[in-house]
């Protein structure tokens, strides 16, 4: 970093000497490269593997993202330009008008299986029958190729959000929710644990091990145990306990309300240990004298925490949050093991569908590899922006 700025300065100052100056600048540039050859040499083992098995496939998938590719040898990828991205991202908002009965001009109501104008329905409703006001079918309102993503009522009007790929938006919505929930909770949870367990006592040592345990032993096998624990009826441990304390049984794995809490709980379970370790290390790095000085100045414990601990832990925070964001946006295993069934990869009503499970479904079940690659690149864009934003928000010095 410092060196490059130095170089810039050099090239700036010599640029007054026109051509000769540029030649000198280039010379200096190559001289530095040569001087630093040992650095490049030492980097080369990693770089070679990284380029061949990391960057090359990534570049390949970037090209695939612009094609329609079904993954069978006999059907080569077909160039479609940005079509996949358009299909993924296009979204539109329309007003959803009520369905009008042609004869009477009134809104259509549906009572049981019968449709009727509002006035007739009111009569039936007065008799206690349940009737529902009908809106027009979303398909009639939305442009071709769009279908309903969601609808909102606002000031007496119903607004319809249509998308060319509503499942993608559902997946993105779930993923963002999951990311926000899991990153905040695992970071705070890790910090809390680190603060609680920072004293070197025997109990604390044991507890540290316990909290770090899932981070190093979790995996498909133990995630499957969670699935068993959350199984329906009292076959599962969770329901047995719910039963004992009289909270009633839950369909944990087939109830939209439970999906996100369970996903986030599993993220907490497996994800708190790592930040805890990092925060413990960060806390150790804070010189004791700082606290002592503050204590002498009469600063209270919360004040000391706010003005000494938190600022000095900022780099660790940043690291934990960024790694957390990058990982949470790509959540896959947990959804796949706990919620996916052969018929439906995203659980009930797609409530557990995340972007990566969706792209896996598109790529490997529907054989739309080009489309799946495009989804991955959209996700990449989102993660990239989020990471840059976090860096900006939390940047302290030259380090990342």
């Amino acid at each position, binding site marked *: *970093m410092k060196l490059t700025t130095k170089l810039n300065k050099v090239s700036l100052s010599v640029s007054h000497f026109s051509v000769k100056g540029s030649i000198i600048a280039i010379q200096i540039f190559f001289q*530095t490269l040569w001087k630093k050859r040992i650095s490049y040499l030492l980097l080369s083992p990693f770089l070679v593997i990284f380029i061949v098995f990391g960057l090359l496939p*990534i570049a390949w998938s970037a090209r695939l993202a612009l094609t329609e590719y079904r993954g069978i040898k006999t059907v080569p990828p077909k160039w479609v330009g940005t079509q996949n991205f358009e299909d993924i991202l296009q979204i539109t908002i329309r007003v959803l008008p009520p369905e009008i009965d042609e004869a009477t001009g009134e809104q259509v109501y549906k009572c049981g299986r019968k449709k009727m104008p509002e006035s007739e329905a009111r009569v039936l409703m007065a008799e206690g029958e349940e009737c529902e006001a009908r809106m027009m079918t979303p398909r009639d309102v939305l442009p071709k190729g769009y279908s309903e993503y969601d609808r909102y009522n606002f000031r007496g009007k119903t607004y319809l959000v249509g998308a060319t790929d509503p499942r993608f938006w559902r997946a993105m919505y779930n993923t963002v929710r999951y990311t926000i929930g899991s990153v905040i909770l695992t970071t705070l949870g890790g910090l809390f644990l680190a603060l609680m367990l920072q004293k070197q006592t025997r109990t604390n040592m044991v507890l540290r091990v316990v909290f770090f345990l899932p981070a190093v*032993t979790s995996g498909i*096998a133990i995630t*499957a*145990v969670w699935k068993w624990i959350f199984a329906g009826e009292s076959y599962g441990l969770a329901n047995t306990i719910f039963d004992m304390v009289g909270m009633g049984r839950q369909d944990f794995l087939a109830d939209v309300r439970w999906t996100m809490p369970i996903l986030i709980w599993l993220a907490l*379970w497996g994800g708190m240990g790592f930040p805890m370790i990092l925060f413990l*290390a960060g806390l150790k790095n804070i010189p004791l004298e700082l606290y002592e000085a503050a204590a002498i100045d009469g600063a209270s414990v919360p004040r000391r925490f706010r003005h000494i601990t938190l600022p000095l832990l900022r780099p660790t925070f940043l690291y934990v949050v960024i790694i957390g964001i990058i990982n949470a946006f790509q959540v896959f295993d947990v959804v796949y093991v706990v919620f996916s069934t052969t018929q439906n990869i995203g659980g009930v009503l797609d409530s557990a569908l995340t972007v990566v499970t969706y792209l896996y479904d598109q790529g490997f079940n529907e054989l739309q590899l080009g489309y799946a690659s495009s989804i991955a690149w959209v996700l990449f864009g989102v993660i990239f922006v989020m990471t840059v934003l976090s860096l900006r928000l939390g940047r302290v010095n030259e380090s990342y």
Partner: protein
Amino acid sequence: MIEKNTSIGRLLTWSAMAPVLFMAFLMIVPYYWMVIGAFKNVPELRKVPPTFVVENPTLNNFYDEEGNTPPNHQEGLFQRFKDTKGGFARIYANSIFISVSVTFASLLIASLTAFVLAKHRFPGRNFIFIMFMASMMVPWQVTLIPNFLIMRDLNWINSFRAIVIPASAQVFAVFFLRQFMLSLPDELLDAARVDGAGELRIWWSIILPLVRPALTAIGLIIFLGQWNNLVWPLIVLRDANLRTIPLAISLINQSLFGPTTLGLVMAAAFLTSIPTLILFIVFQKEFVRGITMSGMKG
């Protein structure tokens, strides 16, 4: 936060300890459930409500001498996988071999790379860094097919190379180790350079010993990642003799709630967690020492 002399502070600590202990309890619940599951017999496993302690402990999930007499007996874990020479033991050995190789190879390469990135200044450093970071943002699922085609062209299908070599470049590990190495004082390296030590020597005999705790931590995580890796080994290792544990589990686990396989899955899960558990307990001291001695710089 360090010294709490007031009684209010002490009270706060203790009331805050309660949720910590409760959380700690929740952390180990699945392990307990898995361990007792591995030693329950089939009818007990399927009992509603479930039993909290094993009533009739059995080893039949691992090996059942009367395994060939259905319906009340079935073959245990070590009697399954007849298409793999050596059965589950072989599968276990495969997993250990792969995970150990990947861990050592990637620790060596990653620590070297992290050392250069943390302690050398050279043009392109930031660019390399950004590339590393960006590559972590692309889901691996999307590079599965391209990577597979590369393996085919290299003729690495059905060979452990296809797993060990790509996995030895772990960006995450570089990231982590670099963070630790940043906090090492430069003077130490300069002194060594004055004494005429080469960069490799500095890496090997100065840096590595100093970041050993960090190596242990990230090594455990790499090991675990490989130990649990399902899809990639499944795609590139087609020969039944090369199977790894996660694949074996998913084969028995065709229906977790299906007929009688739950005990086998729990037995396999139990055996699967043992090595990571042992590693963790063995290195735990190292770990704690690492936290107390060296630290991390942002």
